[in-house]
């Protein structure tokens, strides 16, 4: 099981022939126990999805933390209101039973009560909506980004273009074509005979079925990155839950979102707007590298030939031209 994002590097290469797992059930039971243990310790760990997960990830950006706090506040408000309302109802159900000889009262209104249960919800809602408004304003503030990446959704892959970094336009870095990893792609075919549990990230051990890509987006840690999000054919949705960066990718419209990730690691998400038959097969993987490693990686991308091999430790994949955007 994945115990959180990791920085161990080269994880996206094809992993060779997969074999059918013969012990899915055992694996799942033991996996579930292990995961439950992890969950009990830290239900909210910044992590990619784990079995039996029951709550939002806390995420790794300031915005995702604010949202998580708001989410928990709203959740607890709902739990308390639920206890009050259902509690009152079940007390009524057990106390005022005809079978216990209860005689019905005849009153039908109580102005004070009605006033109270109109006003109190208004106050609670204002109490939730006010911080929500502040967070929304922060989410909409993509100014002062040190880096801009353009994200384009296609049926069924993502294209990433670096636009600017550190105040300078980025022109020589090749486009990243990020499509479903080959292992997942083989396993997901109808009657493939390949178990989804056999698709594993070799470096991290994470079961990354349908969450692995041929080549991830790479961004530096500690840098405010602005994502310009659009689409080329139908509507897609770009979302990394741990960043709380999410926006519809609409043809003809450029949306933006931003994230400042301090913790290096591999973060995974999925397209969230129905985009056709392979909607479930266009994951998003973002690899966050420490800034110096990222700079080395970027330099290598700009001019792979001029670099010493040793400087390419942070390289993610061998250079190869990405696939053409597939249509239909």
């Amino acid at each position: 099981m994945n115990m959180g994002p990791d920085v161990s590097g080269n994880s996206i290469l094809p992993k060779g022939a997969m074999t059918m797992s013969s012990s899915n059930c055992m694996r799942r039971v033991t996996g579930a126990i292990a995961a439950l243990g992890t969950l009990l310790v830290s239900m909210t760990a910044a992590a990619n999805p784990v079995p039996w997960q029951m709550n939002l990830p806390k995420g790794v950006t300031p915005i995702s933390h604010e949202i998580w706090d708001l989410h928990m506040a709203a959740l607890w408000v709902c739990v308390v209101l639920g206890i009050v309302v259902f509690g009152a109802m079940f007390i009524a159900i057990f106390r005022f039973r005809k079978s216990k000889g209860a005689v019905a009262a005849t009153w039908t209104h109580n102005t004070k009560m009605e006033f109270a249960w109109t006003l109190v919800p208004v106050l609670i809602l204002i109490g939730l909506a006010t911080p929500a408004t502040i967070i929304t304003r922060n989410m909409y503030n993509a100014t002062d980004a040190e880096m801009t990446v353009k994200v384009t959704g296609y049926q069924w892959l993502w294209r990433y273009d670096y636009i600017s970094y550190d105040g300078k336009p980025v022109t020589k870095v090749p486009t990243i074509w990020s499509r479903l990893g080959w292992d997942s792609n083989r396993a997901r075919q109808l009657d493939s005979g390949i178990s989804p549990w056999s698709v594993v990230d070799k470096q991290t051990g994470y079961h990354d079925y349908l969450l692995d890509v041929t080549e991830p987006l790479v961004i530096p840690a500690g840098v405010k990155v602005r994502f310009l999000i659009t689409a080329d054919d139908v509507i897609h949705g770009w979302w990394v839950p741990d960043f709380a960066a999410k926006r519809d990718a609409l043809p003809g419209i450029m949306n933006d979102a931003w994230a400042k990730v301090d913790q290096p690691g591999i973060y995974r998400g999925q397209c969230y707007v129905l985009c056709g038959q392979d909607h479930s097969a266009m994951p998003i993987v973002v690899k966050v590298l420490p800034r110096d490693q990222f700079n080395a990686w970027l330099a290598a991308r700009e001019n792979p030939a001029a670099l010493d091999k040793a400087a390419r430790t942070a390289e993610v994949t061998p250079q190869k031209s990405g696939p053409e955007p597939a249509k239909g």
Partner: protein
Amino acid sequence: MSSTAQAVHYEEHHQSWFERWFMSTNHKDIGTLYLSFSFLMLFVGGSMAMLIRAELFEPGMQLMQPYFFNELTSMHGLVMIFGVIMPSFVGLANWMIPMQVGAPDMALPRLNNLSFWILPFAFILLLSTFFMPGGAPAAGWTMYPPLVLQGGEAIAFMIFAIHLMGISSILGSINIIATILNMRAPGVDLLKMPMFCWSWLITSFLVIAVMPVLAGAVTMMLFDRFFGTNFFNAAAGGDSVMYQHVFWFFGHPEVYIMILPAFGIISEIVPTFARKPLFGYKAMVYAIACIAFLSFIVWAHHMFTVGMPLGGEVFFMFSTMLIAVPTGVKIFNWVTTMWKGSLSFEVPMLWAIGFIVLFSIGGFSGVMMALVPADFQYYGTYFIVAHFHYVLVGGALFSIIGAVYYWLPKWSGNMYSSFWGKLHFWSSVISVNVLFFPQQFLGFAGMPRRIPDYNVAFADWNMVSSIGGFWFGATQLVFVGVVIHCVFFSKQKATSRVWEHAYGLEWTLPSPAPHHSFTVPPVIDDSQLAHGDVTH
């Protein structure tokens, strides 16, 4: 009762079977047709749900190609919304409104016949798309362009079917408004009407206001797909977001079209079995009116991540949260109606209590997703799926089933087996939570909706959810048995009152109710009305 005029029974009409079931203009027969049709559609749409849950039972693709899965989710939504929830509420309105306002029939009986008979043809058109080249529409029930425009010729059938359903709903609503405003017996003032009539009066105006909007949206889609226009094609200056705004301007009031009549039903059932008048009758009426108004100014909360300006996000967040206030009033009033009552728990009451709990859970998740930043993490995930299934299955469908259990003895003249009714309830209320509660966890964990295959981390809760789904689906077969037994085989005759504390004009009629409900206006005794003595 004494106020009832000479009952004119069906037998006296000498209609043939064909005349009765295909040419009828009688509100009860048409109500039966509506309810039977939606019952059939419940199993059509339910079969699709079973296939969906079967494919989602485990990760990996086992049963179908992904495109067929998308056809199933899209058609499941369209069938359940337009083929089950809406027609069954119209069916209940047909049966109950003339009896509740003291009228002989609906105001416009021939229109009534037409509005029903459009529906089977609409659904034959819609369901036939499964057998067409290119398959059924597969862009979700929301039919967002540009994706929907990639569909085959079937799109034209879907659009025409939606036009027909819209016409059917509008005609039905006109009829309900005309009946309520013109056919009330002397003494049945608007503010003495049963809540069910009130909820349908307001719902009817929503239907008339928004179904043409949907018709407009799908007509633009039709022109884009077949006649070369570019309303939604960005490459030619169109805007796919415009479709979303137009669609949800219809879609949000549509949500309330599917829940306001449920509020009416619950407001009838709870006082009967609490043996205590409905708490805050007028507040209940105003709350429904208030919800109906607000439903027109909240639509963009379905599209918070679309890239609206900040001001738009905040406006729609506040207007959405405002809806929680009148909705809360309704919940509080039902609970207070039970407080200091003399409760008994016959089958309809169980379903009403189930409704209150499940609908509230759906309402709570609704409040959470009204918060814009939180919705960014929820949007497009299974949390949304769980939310609207709690309000539509646990809410609307539970209220419909409760209504059938409440009024079936009045319709058929026979009592049903309360053992099987209770078994149906307990099995449903447990399985529906096994089905939908884990979907909230899946949504939090980040599982997108509308996917046929998923990462193994989502496997366990999906398997739990699927087990709940099969259980819930199988349980509904009990309902078929109970209804068929009650109508055709039950030996236990129902009294005219049926339930000890049931008030309202429908209970003054014999069971089964005569063919023409009130051939002369009943003389109203306020104590016989459900809300005859409203002092506040």
